């Protein structure tokens, strides 16, 4: 009898343990093209670092798929006056160190953001953070600022107590160090769903779910996540198909069909907001000062064809800077491709015999960047513009771009603010060394009305009015052919079947892995 009992007990134990383990121990192996460069979220502003921030830290608010805002550490917010937004913080939020989140941490984080070389530009409009009480904080801007909530998605409160003091080298723990050792580079204490338990830079990072995570309604069941960088596209796809990893991003366009047709894997794609353009330098070429020539070039380039043939449909043809869903999206601006009309415009401008000019493009920065520029060269040959193209790796490209060494230069842009005005501020506003506007405007397009509208949009808090302003900007740029729009790159993710990838991805490309449900 005792034997039977102990046997039964053993069986129950085994089943009980394995059932518990099954529910808890979902391990997700993720392969990305790169891994986070640091554990300090403020050391570099890049897609990879923001993806990391969403795993280990939590923002005040975050983006929903439909570009609205979801409450996170702030459960409620309200505008107090034109300059001030009040955020009410949750009271049940713990940091990984065990400390409790208070308004002081938010204030401390904002001050640190304003010191970060990468983020200080974005947080320039902010005056200060005023603590109302332990769980209420006011963010005050210098001028009325329309994008305050967009910026709140970048405020990932850090544990002020944890990062205060000096480390073994006598360096302050909160120092933002780009090169060289620092406390924050290798230690983290955020409020996010995952804790970094192991990190070997460039090899793998291991995340484990934080036991005291405040969001008890979080549907995800990933207990441990192993992030490995796999640089080469073909290897990353092979790792997914062979089952070595469960989730990959980004997915190279040439492998979409392979992943779709493979039993056991799935692909999720979404139109993105990175616009690929060419800029026509008016300072170098008097021809480009004539709007008819610029229009002729836009008419001559078959960007639908490029999307179809070169991008294999994995992009959205563009005729303006911001995609559908952005405030400035203007439905009137549609892609135009008409070689006959382009030839007519060239003749009107007096260039029916064309001219010769130069072009540069990177060859490892954007998807198919080299092939796209080659296609554009052959398209421009049809309106007698002979283009001498030079492509180069991105490590060398940006210095050449800034020096404006060629007449036509390629640039892609994704707005850090997720807002239409950001494109204009960097790409088409009159270049101005003092204000920093037009930093990447190598076309030297300059239109006082565009500058005026974009600047006014910054402090316009009536979203309808603001939207109208930004749409007007897009229309002016379209009519002026200020630049050559090609397409917005699509975003893509792939994983094993049985996980709900659609629910966790968004146009910002910050997959919320904590919410991932793996069946």
């Amino acid at each position, binding site marked *: 009898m005792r034997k039977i009992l102990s046997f039964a007990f053993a069986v129950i134990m085994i089943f009980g343990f394995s059932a518990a383990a099954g529910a808890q121990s979902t391990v997700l192996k993720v392969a990305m093209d790169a891994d986070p460069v640091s554990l300090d979220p403020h050391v570099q502003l890049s897609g990879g670092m923001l993806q990391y921030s969403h795993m280990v830290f939590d923002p005040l608010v975050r983006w929903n798929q439909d570009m609205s805002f979801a409450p996170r550490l702030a459960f409620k917010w309200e505008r107090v006056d034109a300059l001030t937004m009040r955020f009410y913080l949750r009271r049940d939020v713990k940091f990984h160190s065990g400390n409790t989140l208070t308004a002081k941490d938010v204030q401390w984080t904002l001050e640190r953001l304003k010191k970060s070389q990468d983020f200080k530009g974005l947080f320039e409009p902010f005056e200060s953070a005023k603590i109302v009480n332990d769980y209420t904080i006011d963010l005050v801007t210098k001028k009325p600022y329309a994008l305050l909530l967009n910026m709140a998605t970048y405020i990932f409160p850090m544990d002020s107590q944890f990062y205060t003091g000096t480390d073994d080298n006598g360096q302050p723990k909160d120092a933002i160090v780009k090169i060289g050792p620092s406390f924050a580079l290798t230690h983290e204490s955020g409020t996010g769903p995952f804790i970094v338990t192991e990190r070997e830079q460039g090899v793998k990072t291991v995340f484990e779910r934080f036991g005291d995570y405040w969001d008890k309604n979080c549907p995800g069941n990933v207990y441990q996540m192993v992030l490995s960088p796999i640089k080469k596209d073909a290897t990353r796809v092979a790792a997914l198909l062979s089952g070595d990893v469960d989730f990959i991003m980004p997915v190279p366009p040439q492998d979409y069909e392979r992943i779709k047709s493979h039993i056991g894997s799935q692909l999720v794609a979404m139109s993105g907001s990175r616009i690929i353009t060419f800029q026509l330098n008016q300072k170098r070429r008097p021809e480009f000062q004539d709007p008819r020539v610029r229009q002729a070039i836009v008419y001559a380039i078959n960007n639908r064809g490029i999307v179809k043939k070169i991008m294999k449909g994995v992009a959205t043809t563009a005729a303006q800077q911001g995609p559908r869903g952005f405030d400035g999206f203007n439905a009137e601006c549609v892609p135009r491709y008409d070689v006959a009309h382009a030839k007519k415009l060239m003749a009107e401008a007096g260039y029916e015999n064309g001219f010769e000019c130069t072009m540069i493009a990177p060859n490892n920065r954007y998807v198919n960047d080299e092939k796209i520029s080659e296609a554009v060269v052959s398209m421009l040959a049809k309106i007698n513009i002979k283009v001498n193209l030079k492509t180069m790796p991105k*490590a060398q490209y940006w210095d050449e771009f800034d020096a404006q060494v060629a007449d036509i230069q390629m640039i892609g842009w994704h707005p850090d603010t997720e807002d239409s005005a950001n494109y204009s501020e960097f790409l088409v506003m009159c270049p101005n060394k003092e204000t920093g506007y037009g930093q990447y405007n190598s076309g030297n397009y300059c239109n006082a009305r565009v500058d005026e509208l974009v600047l006014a949009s910054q402090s316009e808090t009536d979203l309808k009015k603001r939207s109208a302003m930004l749409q007007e900007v897009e229309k002016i740029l379209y009519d002026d052919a200020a630049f050559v729009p090609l397409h917005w790159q699509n975003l893509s993710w792939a994983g094993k079947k049985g996980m709900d990838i659609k629910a966790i991805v968004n146009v910002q490309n910050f997959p919320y892995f904590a919410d991932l449900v793996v069946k």
Partner: protein
Amino acid sequence: MFAFIVRRITQSIVVMLIIGFIGFAIKHEIGDPVRDIVGISVSVAERDALREQLGLNDPFLVQYGRFVYNALHGDLGYSFFFKKPTTEVILAKAPATLELVFVSALIIILVSIPTGIFAAIYPRNWFSRLTMGASIVGVSIPVFLTAILLIYLFSVELGWLPSYGRGQTVNIHGWHSGLLTKDGLIHLILPSIALSSIMLPLFIRLIRSEMMEILETEYIKFAWAKGLRRRRIWLLHAFKNTLLPVITVGGVQIGVMIAYTILTETVFQWQGMGFMFLEAVERSDTSLIVAYMVFVGALFVVVNTVVDIIYGLVNPTVRIVGSK
């Protein structure tokens, strides 16, 4: 012998100084490291301040002088990406590469010697003809293609072997070895086959032609006439003399193989020096690039010295210069 080694060390220091100088001279052409450590929207003024802080604005000779001074103190600079001393980064990555090269060299030796000898003795045998035919194909397929084909066949289609990385490693005093665990060894199979595929055909053909030549010589004919056993003639009399040119070529080719690890490691996401170097070029992590070049230069000198010593052991008629 001692004088020989001392002379080699002196030479290697000169070699490394020259490599360092060349590396320094071209590093400005590789790109601007500051671009890679800041976001794209960071202002020009901020970037300039950072460049100044890193000492990248100093004149070339000042930078080179500082580099040599620090290098003599054992400091090859700081990696911009890894945020660690470059020597530390390279030493951490070196075991992966050395193990890969070691296993590939083992495959080459174990496969090329029997195959080459067999093909020389029985040139008309179907197996010899097949290997010769296959070696032409093998030598003309680029290594990254071989690597991708191997991944697709053995990982994706058959699912037998892992597609990337080193698997589980054991830490022996800082040397992370994949040779001691089953998982690590399984991960080694595909990369080492891919890497050996470049040299294997070459060595089979080399051994075959050298051996065939020697089998025609007078002393082999004399050995036959003496009535020695076949095995003794082939393996002792003929093969030993075949080895001399093979060792010379082998010494040079090990260096080439280290260069080829750059491609193999990238395809397999193998965390070695070659992969690290390619990444460093892409990120314009210039201090790491220069340190890698100096390190590989030193490695070449060591390999060549060892080959020279082995050569002297195999062929006593050759005296190493400087040894009495």
